[in-house]
């Protein structure tokens, strides 16, 4: 198994600021927008972005939630293992809101499909946008594309993109791991 660095800590920081600015450009003060991080791995990126928007760009109030998609996945009973759930924390309705879904890696698009279904349990959103740090292009199983992307990556099926966060793994780095 070998791994190479796709994004360093400095690059991630620059990308976070760019993504934050792109969000600001479209959502201004987030008065009718909400940000929702996907459990488990999208939550780190979502919280980071929230921090940048609040601290560096002084957006005062952004409704923020975490969404678990386990019960909406399309591979239930198809793998060997039971799918373990994480917690959902959304204490607002998305009815009529502009929703920004945040996940770390966009690969087949199946998690996002599940997230779109899961989100319907919280109302009918005005629109939904997708933000991902890594977009593994040419590997989609579904017609789903990000509206905001950190970096596009070409990776083959045998390779894995590993996103590490300071608060979890002790460093901000994105690796491409070959089996």
């Amino acid at each position, binding site marked *: 198994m070998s791994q190479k660095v796709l994004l360093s800590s400095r690059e991630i920081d620059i990308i976070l600021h760019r993504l934050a600015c792109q969000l600001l450009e479209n959502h201004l003060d987030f008065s009718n927008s909400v940000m929702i991080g996907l459990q488990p791995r999208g939550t780190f990126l979502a919280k980071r972005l929230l921090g940048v928007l609040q601290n560096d760009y002084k957006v005062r109030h952004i409704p923020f939630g975490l969404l*678990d998609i386990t*019960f*909406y996945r399309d591979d239930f*009973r198809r793998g060997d293992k*039971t799918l373990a759930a*994480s917690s959902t924390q959304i204490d607002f*309705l998305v009815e009529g809101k502009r929703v920004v879904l945040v996940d770390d890696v966009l690969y087949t698009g199946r998690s996002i499909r599940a997230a779109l279904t899961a989100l319907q*349990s*919280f109302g009918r959103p005005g629109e939904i946008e997708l933000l991902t740090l890594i977009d593994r292009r040419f590997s989609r199983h579904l017609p789903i594309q990000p509206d905001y992307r950190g970096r596009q990556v070409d990776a083959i099926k045998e390779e894995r993109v590993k996103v590490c966060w300071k608060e979890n793994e002790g460093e901000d780095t994105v690796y491409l791991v070959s089996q």
Partner: protein
Amino acid sequence: MSELSVRHLLGIKYLKRSDLDLIFETADHFKEVLARPIKKVPSLRDLTIANIFFENSTRTRLSFELAEKRLSADVINFSAAQSSVRKGETLIDTVNNILSMKVDMVVMRHPNPGAGIFLSNHVKASIVNAGDGAHEHPTQALLDAYSIRERLGEVGGKKVVIVGDILHSRVALSNIFTLQMLGAEVKVCGPRTLIPKYVESLGIGVEYDLKRALQWCDVANMLRIQNERMDMSYFPTTREYTRQFGINKALLDSLEREIVIMHPGPINRGVEITSDVADSSQSIILNQVENGVAIRMAVIYLLASKIK
């Protein structure tokens, strides 16, 4: 652990501690789902579940049915009163007939102890025991322990007394196994005639004085007198039972600390528990019912994930 160690839920005694933790953790997630505007997830949309009840039930059957529907499973209901069982069909035949209609899971209540275990050896579907005679009622015990955990933070180290008709109670036995596995101390309390012989061999205490039992405990689980299972007289009169083993507000208020009152239902108001106790803030009877749906969703979800 993210997987149950069993394919069927036949009784608590076949489970491991890690199974209980997994069920509770999954139930936490389903409780959150049940608080949403749309309380339904699509996980089991390709599965069919049969609720087969050879004995009367309101709460348990409704709770199971709701749990199944919230998980998007297709549900068929069957109660023995209106069925061919009356015409002499055997249990295996009845269930196999239902299974040939492509049913994946069977939730069964049966008056005979061990009916679920017997069935699990003879049919292909996953079996969930919804009460088998005076043997076990695992989902009730799970939701009881879950409700204690919710109210008191944890079950380990807590003192729980189960009061009433222990002899005929499947709730008592499943509760004893569950609470012990989670590290709680358990006592039973009731008339001598309704306490099974050798019950101490389960590692629990026996108390014949209700007041002493209540002073000892953190939680009191009040059981109903199961008149329908009594083939003889176990105590002189209902009034005498109530005087000795019924809980009322005066008794509750005379205790040094606030204990939690539970009841698996159906309540016989004025017999084992008075209305002012059942409806007091110390009672978590309705929380138990609410948690029942989340617990049953968790059990069904986790068992369903093992159906290939």
